[in-house]
């Protein structure tokens, strides 16, 4: 046995933090899927909304990146 309980907890926590990426994946997929279904209903309006879609992707992706950050902090900073 090497290491200690704190290190074990940090590693388990880092692994658990990765589940947050799944949430971000659901969010990004939701944004793009809804954009696509809207775009197929009204293709002429789709071009103007691409920027909005990317803003939505960026905001929902940021939360997934936060979970990645938590994992990194647990791995290297705690």
């Amino acid at each position, binding site marked *: 046995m090497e290491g200690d309980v704190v290190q074990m907890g940090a590693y388990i926590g880092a692994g658990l933090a990765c589940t947050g990426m799944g949430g971000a994946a659901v969010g990004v997929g939701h944004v793009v899927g809804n954009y696509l279904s809207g775009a197929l209903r009204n293709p002429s309006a789709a071009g103007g909304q691409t*920027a909005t879609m*990317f*803003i939505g992707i*960026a905001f929902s*992706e*940021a939360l997934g*990146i936060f979970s990645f950050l938590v994992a990194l902090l647990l791995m290297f900073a705690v």
Partner: protein
Amino acid sequence: MSSEATGAEHAAEEGGLVFHPMDQFIVKPLFGDTIAWYTPTNVTLWMGFSILAIIALLVLSTSKRAIVPSRAQSIAELAYGFIYKMVEDVAGKDGVKYFPYIMTLFMFIVCANFLGLLPMSFTTTSHIAVTAVMAMAVFLTVTILGFYLNGFGFLNIFWIRQAPLVLRPILALIEIISYFVRPISHSIRLAGNMMAGHAVIKVFAGFAAIAAIAPVSIAAISAIYALEVLVSFIQAYVFAILTCVYLKDALHPHH
């Protein structure tokens, strides 16, 4: 996935080409061993390369001003027109004044991201220190500009008038928190995406040392590399477009 994980362990036991996937992000001085604030490091070198790339693309290629543009000139013109239209669409007509700043940010990030995709290169934008400086600059610019242009009317962005009066204090609290999280998410999004993508490529490169699964992992590297080219561009675009969104808040704080 599990077979690949055991493959990595086998490689480690057999003493094949094993390296840590995060090794590529270590800052090394170009000469000597000590690092002080003035030491030229690989970060300095690759930042210099990205600035040279911007100069080559935007200055040298457009110096002839050909009516029928060359390939390099049309790329420069496309990039200029693309960002100009984005600023105009998102930040409005009066946001066009700040177009040079956003163009600078976009070109620097996109060149640094693309140069970081070269083998043996160093991705400057994968370091939070680099992106945090850019994000803090945007945050401070937007905040100071908002107070300069609107006075204390800038605080209207926290007080949403469309909402019912009961909800407004709660919404104000949420808005204030989200306002101050902006520089963090703005910088970590770019650094995190770059770091994660490059680390994934290096992980698969480690698998390529094992003869049995080498073809699979080389195919995977090619696919992920193509994805990374796309991500490099999209992240630079997202950084620029979010700067425009924040700028719009400063220019028009009334929702």
